[in-house]
């Protein structure tokens, strides 16, 4: 198992956002977390990335507990997170955003290959290389965010709501990218609100509600269950 999370509990002050979450991700899989807003998906991911400290529970990466490590230590171990909202450095240029991310694995000079891959996947980034990142459209910013994450050479890439606020053509592009990433050996953990998208790509799916895992299974098995959308995703129409 690449990632194993057991009985995770994360609080904001005294309020528990994640109550008792257990899940795992095998190498080479694509696992998807589904749930309505406020279910605790993002909080779980932030805890895995070391940004939030869990009140209870264990997180194991490569059979080694990573609870209590700093975000930069977690990144060095090989977990990359593209958080909700993308969080690109809007005041920096596209180039500078990439430069920051390149530092973990030796700087831009050492990452020629990865940069080539990135520009092949997202040619817009080469076009807007010296432009202010804050001026990119939502979809372009998402590409930049993924590109940044790739430069940290993650073995596990966590994407939190990658399709949020994106035009459909960008979402398609982004999902194609995920497939390509999986083929090249990156394990993916996706957080989504769209069941259709999740089913199209994921191997296994976990449903989260009120901070707990309420259902999980292989995508193939869950594909026929149209009731799930209403039960766990607040009745959001299939997107």
């Amino acid at each position, binding site marked *: 198992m690449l990632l194993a999370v057991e009985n995770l509990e994360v609080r904001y002050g005294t309020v528990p956002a994640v109550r008792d979450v257990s899940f795992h991700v095998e190498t080479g899989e694509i696992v998807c977390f589904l749930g309505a807003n406020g279910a605790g998906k993002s909080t779980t991911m932030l805890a895995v990335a070391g940004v939030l400290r869990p009140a209870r529970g264990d997180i194991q990466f490569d059979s080694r507990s990573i609870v209590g490590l700093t975000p930069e230590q977690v990144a*060095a171990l090989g977990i990359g997170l593209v958080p909700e909202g993308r969080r*690109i450095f809007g005041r920096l240029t596209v180039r500078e*955003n990439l430069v920051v991310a390149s*530092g973990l694995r030796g700087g831009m000079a050492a990452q020629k290959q990865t940069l080539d891959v990135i520009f092949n996947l997202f040619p817009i980034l080469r076009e807007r290389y010296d432009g202010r990142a804050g001026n990119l459209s939502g979809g372009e910013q998402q590409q930049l965010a993924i590109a*940044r994450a790739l430069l940290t050479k993650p073995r596990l890439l966590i994407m939190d709501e990658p399709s949020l606020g994106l035009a459909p053509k960008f979402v398609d592009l982004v999902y194609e990218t995920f497939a390509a990433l999986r083929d090249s050996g990156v394990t993916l953990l996706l957080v989504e609100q769209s069941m259709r998208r999740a089913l199209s790509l994921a191997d296994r799916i976990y449903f989260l509600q009120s901070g707990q895992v309420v259902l999980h299974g292989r995508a193939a098995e869950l594909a026929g269950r149209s009731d799930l959308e209403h039960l766990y995703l607040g009745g959001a129409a299939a997107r």
Partner: protein
Amino acid sequence: MNGIQLMVDALSLGSQYALVALGIGLVFGIMRMINFAHGDLMMLGAYALVVPTTADVAPPLIGKWPAVAMIVAITALVACAGILTERFAFRPLRHRQADGATLLISSFAVSYLLQSVVLLVHTGRPKSVSIFAELTRQMEIGGVRVALVDVVTIAVTALLLLAMVVFLRRVRWGVEIRAASEDFTMARILGVRADAVIALAFAIAGGLAGILSLLYVAKTGVLDFRMGVPLAVAGFVGTVVGGMGSLIGAVLGGLFLGVASSLLQALLPEALRPGRDAFLYSLVIVVLLVRPQGLFAPRDTGERT
């Protein structure tokens, strides 16, 4: 007073304040803490020029080294002092999740500590020291005589600012500092080491304080354990008025404050002059109320931490 003289005076003071504000702004950008101790780092640099002694007269120590060695030594020393204050005061607090209020008080405490130590070692009596004596000469610009040290201050500041721009844009560490200032957590998620980037910011701020101490002492020739306070106040006001969280804002704020201060001093009628400082300090409150991002900060479209 002649227009050129006035401008040189104003720019010289503005340069000093800009340097202080830059130092304060660098640390504030990443840690969201106003480092009151910054002015006292400059004071440490100044006192390092003389032999530590409680005697009335302090013989020069580093102050009598050859120019280049002195500049390098003082800059390095104050940079180290900056790193040490971070390492032993602020880092332990950061690692204990100290909130903004606690950090603020602690920077005040560090400032007080530095002043108290120097007071203990040197006593409260001002001491004099002479460095770069050649700079006290005057030179001619456009037929007007101005103090060489002022011109040098302006020139050095301009060079330092240029160097900073290059560093912050072209050197990876500099870009990391800017990224950390914009969204510290995201930078860490991308692998930027928090302790390292903060230590670097303190080192640079310290180095700037060191150079400023040389310029300041070259001009005034006086050491006093409280000498850092007016500069820290100016830097603080400049940073807030210019724009916290924006380095450009901080620098422009410091510049603006120094220039305004100088010009008001020269141009206000005698009776109103004492009100000058009060007016400038109260700008802080006005800015915080009306335009909290500062007068000169660029529109902030970046992500919030």
